[in-house]
């Protein structure tokens, strides 16, 4: 299986669509489509995320391979998969970009979560007030916030302060360039976790949902 995963990762990085689907189909046929997703797609995206973090692959490869995987998940499990499957611990997930016009980071996180087969509410771009209102109304357990600009990252403090009052159940996960350049920043703004690459969102959600009461 490891050799197959290595090959799958190489095929993704090379954006070799044909090979990617051959490898997935082989697992899906001999075992189950879900296993193909869990044993190839998820670990490969995690590896590619880590490679990017270590400056050993580029964001264009992260993005394009994420898209390819999302397509494959739809083909394997059917586009409705994310409405029938649930996130760990039945957690309600939401994803947003705060006060920032840069949506790419959020899109990549969304792709990764979809590839994991979990439903996630996409709030697109939000202001602090709008975000707090929606998070409370939707009873979100895990709110994922992406920012690219430093002032937007600093605004997360306002969100966590208000949520602590109004929706204490909500855990806040942050990510994006300012948090990568300053590894202390997520604590300073009162977040519960930070992902240095998009694929980390999966393990973080599992950690937080598993630890929730």
């Amino acid at each position: 299986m490891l050799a197959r995963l290595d090959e799958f990762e190489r095929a993704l990085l090379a954006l070799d669509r044909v090979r990617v689907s051959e490898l997935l189909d082989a697992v899906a046929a001999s075992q189950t489509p879900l296993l193909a997703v869990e044993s190839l797609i998820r670990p490969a995206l995690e590896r590619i995320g880590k490679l990017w973090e270590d400056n050993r692959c580029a964001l264009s490869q992260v993005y394009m391979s994420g898209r390819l995987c999302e397509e494959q998940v739809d083909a394997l499990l059917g586009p409705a998969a994310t409405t029938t499957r649930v996130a760990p611990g039945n957690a309600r997930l939401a994803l947003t970009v705060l006060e920032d016009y840069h949506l790419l980071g959020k899109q990549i996180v969304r792709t990764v979560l979809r590839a994991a087969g979990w439903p996630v509410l996409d709030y697109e771009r939000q202001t602090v007030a709008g975000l707090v209102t929606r998070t409370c109304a939707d009873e979100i357990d895990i709110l994922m916030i992406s920012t690219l600009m430093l002032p937007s990252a600093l605004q997360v403090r306002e969100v966590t302060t208000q949520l602590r009052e109004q929706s204490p159940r909500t855990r806040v996960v942050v990510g994006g360039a300012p948090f990568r350049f300053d590894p202390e920043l997520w604590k300073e703004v009162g977040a519960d976790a930070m992902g240095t690459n998009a694929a980390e969102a999966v393990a973080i959600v599992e950690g937080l949902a598993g630890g929730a009461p």
Partner: protein
Amino acid sequence: MIRNMTPMQRIVTTLGHRPPDRVPFFLLPALQGARELGLSIREYFSRPDHVAEGQCRLQAKFGHDCLYAFYYAALEAEAWGGEVIFRDDGPPNAGLPPISDVEDILRLTPPRIEDSPGLLRVLETIRQMAARTQGEIPIIGVTMSPFSLPVMQIGFEAYLLLLHERRDLLNQLLGLNEAFCVAWANAQCAAGANAICYFDPVSSSTIIPRSLYLDTGFPCARRMLARIPAAVAIHLASGCGLPIVDELAATGAAMIGVSSSEDLAEFKQVCRGKIGLLGNLNGITMRRWTPAAAEAAVKDCIAKAGIGGGFVLADNHGEIPWQVPDEVLFAIAEAARRWGRYPLDWLTTAGEV
């Protein structure tokens, strides 16, 4: 060696890969002039004399070795029909990309500088700076690279898809952007800019792999640099550059901006005597620095890249965030003067032990 050089002499000497009197430093405070003048960021950038005055005051205050004519990146997107969105506590951003359907690239024509009020303001700022400094302080103009500009013209996702799936449209767009950027850089030089900072983060290895750079951003940079009549610094805006350092040096650039996530010493090893280095203080953590932390960071950069010249100390992005306190900037300036005096005895002596 001249004991007290002007900033211009210092920069010219270091770019000739000889040690000047001290390590030059570029603070690159693009926004902070607003604070000096007691204006909002939007008001500040609304008039060219504000920016000329702000930059001159900041230079007098901190003693750095340039005047920075950069407003904000979205200004160039605005020339192509984009919107600029201001905020009170940071740089303005580009709004929705002006090109919503990539097929429209086929019908696009580049804007003329003289029809773009924002660009004309920058040119006027440069003329006013040039009149005030009389050639003693280098004036740095800025252009987004034709290869990085599309992120703001069509959006990042659409651009990544274009790069992978639509080479025809990519080449068409790059051709238009090159015509625009050459005109824009040349206009800044004619107005009095002494050097151009060519911002090209999409070429960085953070964003695209070296193989893709070799057939896209690299040939584009080579064509561009041949047509800009001034020294050019290629700035990856804190994106990584080590995997493409040889190509960056082969573009004809005088300097490369280095990210804080890479090792300046590794760059120095490859670049010594060939191409100058600019960097690589972390602007994001800078807002929390104590004066001692600032001093340590400055010493570290000088130790890694200062010897022999070919080095300008600066932040790693080409712009100091609004949230960085003045005390930190004073501490950086102070440390650069204290530890940057050539022949950098504290390093050579330590090195001999």
